[in-house]
């Protein structure tokens, strides 16, 4: 038999049992729909998590935190660490394969004053030459910091809250920030205001610019070139009588930018070999992926069970049809139909039920997905999906996979009936009953 004849004969056979065919298809459709929708929820969940992570910070950033002292677990006494995060270590880090840039972060506290208002601020030193790799928010006003203008500070949006110490309001804060960083005259001091120094030494604050508002972890900070911050830091230490004689400066935080997400783990291993623990968003992404895979597995499993039920439905329908068509199959054999053609015909019919059922299931899935995304975003909130993200996402691969899977399920369900059909003997055609 030719393919075209299988097709027409198969469709005719399905058509003559319309109701049963359609009901079986609906079974498949429900199965396919369950799988697709369940997986689409899982996919949406992961998409949303990934997006959130990316918002918080680049996935290619690796953060090393280290303290020059740590506590010995047994004695409880402080011991000095062998590996220090100093400038020599930074050079070593820069030489790791796939490392794009390295910068230490050094924080120094200061006070700002503008007219009757004052504010506390923290300035973070960063290497301005490679700052573009570290995910700073865009500069909204003014310009980026540079070594040419080392004392100029780049402020994060809303990181400095000026208040009036003499205000009646207990906290002294007003709703509106009373000082415009770009416009107003501001003075800065690194001296402790409440410390022993009664007359802090103010100098003029040079503002390089203000960054955009951002959810990124790098967004809530103020930046100045690292070399300048080191100077401020040392100056501050000199004034502090408690602090011991400063030796070489060690950093508590160093950021490493990796050229590609795929190399983050490799770089982290290298950092580990140098004696430091490091953290990256990629670690978290792994966790998220794992969680979302588990969720998808569970949800997909629920869908798979319903598809299994529909597979039984297909098998049932096909077996019923064998009983009805026993004589017909006998006649076909007498008329010269080869066994393989009978098998193929049954597999084809079962496959078509699977295919059309899958198609119907997909149509329903897209419909439900659309409705969910449009009218039920609060469900997404409960699932931990950030607002604005879809709660059901059906990527193209899922669409094709569901369709292929339905066909395969159909054909597998049709396998036993098909084999059973081929066993029908030609003599059935000669029996007078039926």
């Amino acid at each position, binding site marked *: 038999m*030719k393919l075209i004849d299988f097709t027409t004969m198969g469709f005719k056979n399905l058509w003559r049992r319309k109701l049963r065919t359609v009901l079986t298809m609906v079974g498949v459709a429900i199965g396919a729909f369950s799988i697709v929708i369940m997986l689409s929820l899982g996919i949406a969940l992961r998409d949303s998590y990934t997006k959130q992570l990316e918002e918080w910070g680049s996935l290619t950033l690796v953060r090393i935190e280290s303290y020059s002292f740590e506590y010995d677990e047994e004695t409880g006494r402080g011991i000095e660490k062998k590996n220090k995060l100093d400038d020599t270590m930074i050079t070593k880090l820069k030489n790791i394969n796939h490392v794009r840039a390295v910068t230490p972060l050094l924080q120094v506290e200061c006070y700002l004053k503008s007219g009757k208002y004052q504010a506390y601020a923290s300035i973070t030193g960063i290497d301005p030459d490679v700052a573009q790799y570290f995910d700073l928010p865009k500069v909204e006003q003014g310009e980026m910091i540079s070594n040419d203008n080392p004392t100029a500070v780049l402020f994060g949006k809303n990181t400095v809250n000026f208040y009036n110490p003499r205000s009646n309001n207990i906290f002294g804060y007003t709703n509106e920030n009373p000082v415009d960083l770009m416009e107003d005259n501001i003075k800065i001091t690194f001296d402790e205001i409440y410390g022993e120094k009664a007359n802090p030494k103010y100098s003029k604050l040079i503002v390089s610019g203000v960054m955009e508002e951002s959810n990124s972890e790098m967004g809530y900070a103020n930046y100045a070139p690292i070399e300048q911050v080191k100077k401020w830091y040392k100056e501050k230490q000199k004034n502090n009588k408690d602090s011991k004689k400063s030796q070489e400066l060690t950093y508590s935080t160093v950021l490493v930018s990796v050229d590609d997400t795929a190399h983050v783990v490799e770089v982290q291993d290298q950092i580990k070999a140098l004696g430091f623990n490091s953290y990256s968003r990629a670690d978290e992404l792994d966790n998220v992926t794992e969680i979302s895979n588990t969720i998808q597995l569970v949800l997909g499993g629920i869908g798979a069970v319903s598809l299994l039920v529909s597979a039984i439905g297909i098998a049932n329908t096909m077996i019923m049809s064998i009983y009805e068509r026993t004589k017909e199959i006998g*006649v076909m054999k007498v*008329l*010269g139909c*080869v066994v393989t053609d009978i098998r193929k015909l049954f597999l084809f019919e079962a496959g078509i039920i699977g295919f059309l059922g899958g198609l119907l299931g997909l149509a329903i899935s897209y419909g439900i997905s659309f409705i969910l995304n449009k009218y039920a975003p609060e469900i997404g909130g409960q699932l931990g999906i950030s607002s604005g993200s879809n709660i059901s996402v059906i990527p193209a691969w899922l669409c094709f996979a569901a369709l292929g899977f339905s066909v395969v399920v159909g054909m597998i369900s049709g396998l036993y009936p098909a084999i059973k059909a081929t066993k029908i003997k030609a003599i059935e*055609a*000669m029996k007078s009953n039926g």
Partner: protein
Amino acid sequence: MKQENNKNTTIENVSNTDNTPIIEVIDARKIYKVGNEKVLALDGVSFTINKGDFCCLLGSSGSGKSTLLNIMAGIEKITSGQVFIKGQEVTKMGENKLAKFRQKYLGFVFQAYNLVNSLTAQENVEMPMIFKEIPSKKRAAKAREMLIKVGLKERIKHKPSQMSGGQQQRVGIARAFVADPEVVFADEPTGNLDSKTSEEIMDIIKQMAKDKNQTIVMVTHDPTMTRYANKVIEIHDGKLISIKEGEIH
């Protein structure tokens, strides 16, 4: 090749038969086992049928005629003995080889017509040609031609349920002859029909077979039907009683 030559020579032949055996049955025996019981349906039957013969297998009900026909056509397994059609041992063929053999050489007319109810007359007639993988245009044309030949010009697109028994059997005949088989088997083809319709049906079968010098093997319990045959093989209780030859008409 051989088959083609045969055809050409026989078409020119005025006589219906040419004395070359097309079917040989040698000591055919069939035993049915029903539980522990054994039913001897055929008890060592031997005969030959020549090309172009219209052969009647005559016998009362339960005599084993149908069993004999089914064994000759490879529809049932023989217990012992041999059947040759066109020199090929049908009784030794596997299922696939049998299917191909039937496609090529055999046609069937059934007592209960056995049309597919969901298909039109034309589609039913096309069926054997579908298995033979004949292109659909050629198939449709041939099926229509056959239906016109059996007098169903007006019924080509009708479903079996819209036709009388006689009409359905005409479709059955068209289906049996459409692929130009060399042998057509018919088990009581008029068994479900009244005598007038039976006559019409028999005339059609006879005419069809004559046109292309095809061999007919027909089972009947009705002695009056033998008037269409030139060879009558009578069996009783699975045994061969007599073989009568010559134009009995």
